[in-house]
């Protein structure tokens, strides 16, 4: 994947040099370099079917429901004859949050003789899952009028999915006895391909400009990724042996992204 990304960067660099050479020679340019310095919006995870065979804490960890901020930057692309384009960028800021309340509700029901579960301070309370990696896209631009453009786009990438663990402290009512409850991801980083179906709507501010054309737009994206995850749940009652359970789950992450972006054409 790393080699492929180097190859794509090299191709983009060569084509951009070619575009500049054409421009200097006074010919109409076949290629235009595009650059998106920033895009920002929200990621709304879509619900997936509940797997009743999974214990509730694993279910809560793998079926995330909380929307999250989406942001990205430095998307570089090349446009051929103002219609066909390719893009490359490094996605570094996609993620969502665990629905940690689901685990706490489960523990409150599973341990009725215990106080409300308390998250322990010794384990990093990182309830965030995020993924990052190189992305490539192909798109087609449709000019609706002098300023307005539609841009259907197919994008795929290879993500490194990261997640945290959780630990809870349950104190027995009426005594000092306690149980520690750990939900641990066996592998902190998992590789997985991702697929994105995008529709951009944009408005070119200065279509007749000779140098840099500026184009703000709105992006609507459907995103899907399947990740194979392994979890270990450990119940550790003080003074008694630990109880552990191992669970494998194929987590489907699907969601919608709505974002505003800025693109520049050169």
């Amino acid at each position: 994947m790393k080699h492929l990304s180097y190859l794509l960067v090299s191709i983009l660099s060569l084509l951009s040099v070619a575009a500049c050479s054409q421009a200097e020679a006074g010919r109409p340019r076949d290629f235009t370099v595009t650059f998106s310095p920033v895009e920002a919006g929200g990621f709304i995870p879509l619900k997936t079917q509940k797997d009743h065979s999974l214990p509730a804490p694993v279910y809560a960890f793998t079926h995330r429901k909380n929307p999250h901020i989406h942001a990205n930057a430095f998307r570089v692309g090349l446009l051929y004859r103002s219609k066909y384009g390719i893009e490359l960028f490094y996605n570094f800021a996609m993620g969502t949050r665990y629905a940690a309340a689901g685990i706490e509700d489960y523990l409150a029901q599973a341990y009725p003789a215990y106080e409300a579960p308390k998250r322990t301070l010794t384990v990093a309370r990182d309830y965030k899952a995020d993924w990052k990696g190189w992305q490539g896209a192909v798109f087609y631009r449709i000019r609706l009028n002098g300023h307005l453009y539609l841009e259907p786009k197919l994008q795929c990438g290879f993500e490194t999915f990261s997640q945290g663990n959780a630990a809870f402290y349950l104190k027995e009512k009426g005594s000092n006895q306690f149980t520690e409850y750990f939900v641990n991801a066996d592998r902190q980083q998992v590789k997985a391909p991702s697929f994105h179906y995008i529709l951009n709507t944009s408005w070119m501010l200065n279509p007749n400009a000779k140098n840099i054309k500026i184009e703000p737009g709105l992006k609507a994206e459907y995103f899907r990724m399947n990740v194979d995850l392994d979890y270990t749940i450990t119940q550790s009652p003080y003074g008694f042996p630990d109880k552990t359970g191992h669970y494998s789950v194929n987590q489907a992450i699907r969601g919608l992204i709505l974002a505003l972006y800025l693109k520049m054409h050169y």
Partner: protein
Amino acid sequence: MHGHGSYLYETTRNESMSVKLFVTILAAFICFSACKKSNHYFYTRAIRLVNSDNSWEKPDTNNIGQVSGQSYMIRIISSEHVIDPIKNKEYTESVWYFQKYDLKALTVRSLSAFDSTHAAGADISRYFLTDYGAQYTIDEFISSKRINKKYSLTGYREDFSTYLDLMLMKAPSVKGRYDFEVRMIFDNGSIFTDTTSIMLL
């Protein structure tokens, strides 16, 4: 010629404004960087023990005379003294306060016979866990240097108090009246000892 001179004047003035703006931003950045929170150190000057009932979510420390041996807890309240307090008594920003000295030893002795293996005066430290965010044995608490926890407190302080809870994880074999002695030794040589009031366990 007049127009050209005016253009030069405008350009020079714009550049001058840009330089001033840059210098202002740079100065603000340097000031912001320099105004970070200052650290202060404190040391323990005395300890006081309070009997606690840990039956529920939060320990009850109010005039406990009787408690189940299963939920007994000793709360060590330490009086801390700041070594070099902030000069300005009106100071209202938050400040980090750090424990200056490491804890070398913490022992709990039962002043009456506790069980068949622990006569009066025996060390029963291993029957206690510290409740300090996580459940450490006393030895683990000392070796992990948890006593050096920093405190963010507001403004001017000369003295303040901290506490540490010791949870009894093994009830005495016979129900009765018990009292305990706690001794803390710091690496500056200071030793603090206090005894709990008699408690029906």
